[in-house]
């Protein structure tokens, strides 16, 4: 009998399923990258090309460019906003002992289980009722409200997992509460802040179900424009856009791996 098999805690079925699942997950990602270089509006075998014309098409399209600008603007404003507001909130929820704390936590995290469409329509109804014609501002508010729970949740989980003795040690060595927070607590929250930021950032760029309600022709963002393009034109320009987004997400993954390591980030998201 093969001795090496001793060290496999599970039989063959487990790694086999995991491998197939990986291939399943990667298939559309790899395919869309390949398809973006295909010289032809429809998929065909064998593929023709390679060509960069869909990328040229993407970058020359005014609609896509404006949408990209809008999406980046939303992501770059909403992400830091969620972190700045989320951090004190997370501290209050994790450490505070005041009446209504659990209620605040529950209400704050509730958008996580309300379907995005409902949140989107509800916000649209509110903006319509108060005649809040804010252009891109509608989406900024919507994504902030929607993204905040993600940021708070990861940071609360991380805060609850911290060893209180480290902070006690800092206080014992003469640091004030505030200095302890900035010198001892905050550095330990690095990974959850990064994780929260990545969540919010990706959600801000990719969210469809809220964006579709809170944007119009003038404030359209990438996912909405992409959807309309798929509906009306159907050529690999969207594949080119998708490839750029995949490249961005690969860059994010590597950044996370370099900064804190993926397995550590998983550790935080346990709760």
């Amino acid at each position, binding site marked *: 009998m093969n001795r090496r098999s001793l*060290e496999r*805690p*599970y039989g063959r079925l*487990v*790694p086999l*399923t*995991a491998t197939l*699942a*990986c291939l399943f*997950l990667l298939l*559309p*990602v790899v395919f869309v990258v390949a398809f973006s270089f295909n010289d032809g509006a*429809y*998929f*065909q075998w064998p593929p023709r090309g390679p060509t960069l014309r869909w990328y040229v098409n993407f970058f020359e399209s005014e609609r896509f460019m404006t949408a990209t600008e809008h999406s980046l603007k939303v992501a770059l404003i909403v992400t830091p906003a969620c972190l700045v507001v989320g951090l*004190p909130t997370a*501290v*209050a*929820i994790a*450490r*505070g*002992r*005041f009446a209504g704390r659990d209620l*605040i936590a529950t209400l*704050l995290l509730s958008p996580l*289980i*309300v*379907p995005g*469409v*409902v*949140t989107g*329509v509800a*916000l649209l*109804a509110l903006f319509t*009722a108060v005649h809040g014609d804010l252009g891109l501002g509608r989406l900024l508010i919507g994504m*902030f409200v929607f993204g905040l729970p993600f940021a708070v949740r990861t940071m609360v989980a991380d805060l609850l997992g911290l060893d209180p003795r480290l902070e006690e040690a800092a206080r014992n060595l003469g640091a004030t*509460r505030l200095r302890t927070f900035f010198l001892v607590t905050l550095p330990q929250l690095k990974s959850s802040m990064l994780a929260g930021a*990545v969540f919010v950032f*990706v959600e801000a760029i*990719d969210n*469809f179900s809220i964006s*579709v309600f809170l944007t119009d022709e003038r404030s359209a963002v990438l*996912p909405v424009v*992409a*959807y309309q393009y*798929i509906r009306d034109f159907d050529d690999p320009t*969207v*594949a080119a*856009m*998708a490839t750029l*987004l995949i490249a961005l*997400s*690969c860059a*994010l*993954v590597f950044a*996370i791996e370099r900064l804190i390591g993926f*397995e550590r980030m*998983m550790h935080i*998201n*346990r709760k």
Partner: protein
Amino acid sequence: MDKENRHHLWLTVPALLSIGLLFSAYGLFGWTSFYRATPGGLGVGGDFTFDNYLRIFGSWRELAVIGETLWISFALTMISLVIAVPMALVIARSPSRLVRSILLFTLAVTFLSGGVTRAYAWMVLLGNKGLINLALVHLGVIERPIRLVFNWLGVSISLVHFLLPFTVFTLVGAVKNLPLSVEEAARNLGATRMTTFFRVTLPLLSSGLVVAASLTYSLALSSFLFPLLLGGGRVRMVANHIYERLFVAYDIPFAAATSAVFLVLSFVVILGFAGLERLVRKVVVR
């Protein structure tokens, strides 16, 4: 100590404003569900009425959409769990760092690459002249291309793809909390891999499984983009239905009533999962 803890309340003020805004939106939206749409435009008017709710509960078509969504979400959750358990086991237990990294990398890139990207890729892949059909014909599995898109099959395939990373990420923590030595103890006492899995690993994971199922189910329930693109109008889940009420029929009150019913149902389901989790934890792990 007391003083400092009350200070904590002030830290939540910005977040409270955000909650306030969101819940006034939910509230206003819920309130409109008791009125009627004014003809032409997104207006609301008329007298207070339960009409919209009566219309939902009096129509098989409306109830069928909700029922179908609940059922298909359940099926997709089960499929995701079955695939996610082995993945989580490998990520949490594999002695090889390389294997763990490959899986995590795959999940992360899939997860971060976005919904539109993936929905689009599946549309092209599953099309009548898409790669999947081409490959199946080439391999002789089927004679002629079969319809994989614009039906439940296509929606389900793409939704499992969307849900799987969430399910796996939630489960990995649960597996990591389970000490390997407990499984080794079972092997040492004469249990095979299979017996160990079903008598020790799975029962001890059950509470984690329920948590993962709960998250997956609530995500599946709120699917919107995938049925929109891959359902091609023939397949719709509740979110799509609400969207159509709004942008095709311009009937805000009816959309609001549908949302309210749907929301209550999802809360009930999620509370049910939470109760189940507590029960499982009590019965299985004391």
